[in-house]
């Protein structure tokens, strides 16, 4: 846990119940997930009931209450990408890193998830790693790409 960054976020929003979602987003960005410990700390620092923090953490898809990997792989399976072969991209990635959509690998390197249209239909099938979009990759290219991350 990067304590300095987290404490920085808490100091910035101390006692501001209205900034709850803001704080959760910043911590999610930093840690890639919200642990129980963090959720309790958020409720203490922002003076909001823990029940509300939990409700919001479980409600929005962008928050994760289970550990996520350092790099987030998103594969578009929207209509356009599907037709252009998203399934084979997904299969390749699954084979290479050994996890299914919604899962995280053991050393918390990658998390894989399928997403719907990201607005890049012309360059489908699209694969997005840590918000960087790549398009029309062959199996070999995907393998090379994944090797760059650690």
């Amino acid at each position, binding site marked *: 846990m990067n304590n300095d960054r987290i404490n920085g976020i808490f100091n910035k929003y101390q006692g501001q119940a209205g900034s709850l979602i803001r704080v959760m987003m910043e911590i999610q960005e930093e840690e890639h997930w919200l642990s129980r410990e963090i959720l*309790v700390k958020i409720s203490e620092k922002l003076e909001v009931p*823990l*029940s509300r923090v*939990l*409700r919001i953490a*479980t*409600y929005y898809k962008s928050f994760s209450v289970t550990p996520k990997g350092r790099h987030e792989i998103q594969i578009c399976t929207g209509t356009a990408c599907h037709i252009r072969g998203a399934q084979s991209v997904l299969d390749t990635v699954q084979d290479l890193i050994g996890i299914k959509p919604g899962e995280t690998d053991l050393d918390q390197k990658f998390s894989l998830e399928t997403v719907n249209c990201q607005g890049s239909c012309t360059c489908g099938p699209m694969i997005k790693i840590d918000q960087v979009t790549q398009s029309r990759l062959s199996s070999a290219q995907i393998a090379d790409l994944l090797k760059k991350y650690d």
Partner: protein
Amino acid sequence: MSEIILQIDGKEVTASEGMTVLEAAQQAGITIPTLCHHEKLDPYGGCRFCTVEAEVRGWTNFVAACLYPVANNLVVKTRSEKLNRIRKMILELLLAHAPDAFDLQDLAKEYGAKKDRFEKEASFCIHCGLCVRYCAEVKKKNAITFVDKGKTREISFIPEIASKECWSCKECFPLCPTEALQAAYVLVQALAFPSLESTPAE
């Protein structure tokens, strides 16, 4: 406070500004069936079972009586063919979740709702939010909350708070129109503080 005169089921009813149709009806002795309403809690409008016909300037709207504010010359109908159909549908949908809830079964008899109409998905919870809101608004403990969304939404006790507060309170139990809360409570009790099974509270 200014007085407002409206009509409910053909009866002239006097209400004061800021009241809801449900409150005005209750004051005049007219019953509107409710599921998620509780007098100590803020109106929620979750179950829609209190839906009534409200006629303003010749237009009929179907509104939730527990939320709709009274207005002059408002004409409200609490029973009609269409309202019965709406309530029957709501009941049938809720019965798919809590087929054995006594409150629902009584209402089902009255409205002729069949509990087998929709495929059963017995979660024992109808999401009325009574327990959640009671804990937050009256007790101010926030020991129970809704988690998740959509069809996986469910009530959940927060072990950190529940272990301190719930044992001596349990006031939300009798509020539940089904027996979901009881079940969830027992579940959390078993999971989070198994020692209490053998040693009662201090």
